[in-house]
């Protein structure tokens, strides 16, 4: 290992480790991409692929992201973008959970779907995509539906659960399991031109409150479907929340929900205070 570290240090330029040197170390020392990235970051070398992260994310923080494990529940519209962005950000371990395969009606928006991946498991496509864009990131594909029965097991060792589900009942199960697992849940939902995001920490019941009037079935997405841009917008907001949770910085969307209307270009913030009698909304 010491030899490998010396090698990496020799090839670093201005503290940046070029991808070519990273690959040479993988080949020469028989290491995995993940091991080389860990060695680099632990020794103060910033992988050059992240150099544009550099003035907002320090080497220490990049290492923190690399050592993090995030579960993405749902690998469709929201989940595809969430996985793409987490992998490019440098989150070291992603648990991708989805029971489905790609179908033609996914092609208008789900970034992991292509004509070539029709019929392929969404989690397999996630695995392949991440291996292509950032081989240092480990993906654990789980081709199964997340539910109360398997939830705690699937969230073992995970720091944040990202809601990219398309079902309100499963989402409420995720909220319950995340709370029981003692980890934050970043909630996102979309329908047509509209979407919303909120972050729930263990002990909070924001998601349960958001769906307090729900009895059964789907929301407006059933009639409207979803275009290409709404999942990208909401997924990006979710990843920003995940990044802040993992690094312990910034202000989270805690006890509040951001509702976004891309047709009228309106953003409304709805507050969910702990005590239901003091809930306030700015917009309404």
């Amino acid at each position, binding site marked *: 290992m010491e030899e490998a570290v010396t090698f990496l240090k020799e090839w670093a330029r201005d503290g940046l480790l070029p991808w070519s040197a990273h690959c040479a170390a993988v080949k020469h020392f028989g290491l995995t991409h993940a091991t080389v990235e860990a060695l680099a970051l632990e020794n103060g070398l910033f992988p050059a692929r992240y150099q544009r992260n550099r003035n907002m994310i320090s080497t220490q923080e990049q290492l923190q992201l690399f050592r993090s494990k995030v579960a993405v529940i749902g690998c469709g519209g929201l989940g595809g973008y969430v996985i793409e962005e987490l992998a490019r950000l440098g989150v070291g371990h992603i648990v991708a959970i989805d029971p489905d395969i790609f179908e033609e009606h996914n092609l208008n928006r789900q970034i992991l779907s292509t004509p070539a991946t029709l019929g392929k498991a969404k989690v397999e496509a996630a695995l392949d995509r991440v291996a292509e864009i950032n081989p240092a990131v480990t993906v654990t594909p789980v081709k199964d539906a997340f539910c109360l029965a398997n939830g705690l097991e699937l969230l073992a060792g995970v720091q944040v659960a990202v809601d990219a589900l*398309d079902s309100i009942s499963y989402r409420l199960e995720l909220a319950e399991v995340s709370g029981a697992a003692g980890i934050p849940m970043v909630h996102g939902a979309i329908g*047509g031109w509209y979407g919303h995001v909120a972050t729930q920490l263990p002990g909070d019941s924001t998601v349960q409150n958001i769906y307090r009037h*729900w*009895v059964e079935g789907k929301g*407006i*997405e059933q009639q409207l479907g979803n275009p290409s841009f709404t999942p990208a917008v909401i997924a990006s907001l979710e990843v920003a929340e995940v990044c802040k949770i993992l690094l312990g910085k910034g202000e989270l969307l805690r006890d509040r929900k951001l509702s976004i209307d891309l047709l009228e270009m309106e953003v409304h913030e*709805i507050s969910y205070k702990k005590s239901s009698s003091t809930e306030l909304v700015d917009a309404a």
Partner: protein
Amino acid sequence: MQVTIKLFATFRNGRFKIDHRELPDGTDVRTVVLSLGLTEAEIGIIMLNGRHGELDDRLSDNDTLSLFPLVGGG
């Protein structure tokens, strides 16, 4: 009594963004929802004067009622 009704997202289609209505005293939220041609199942969020409300809540003079549809896709 005079009540301000604000609608959001798809609830605006064929209706309005904001409307001021004269309603009989004691009208509840459910009655307003149904009078707008909406169903209970479509309701995501009910805000009454900036606080979370319920379908059974009774409205008072000068209240502002805001309705958001249910959004659950991914």
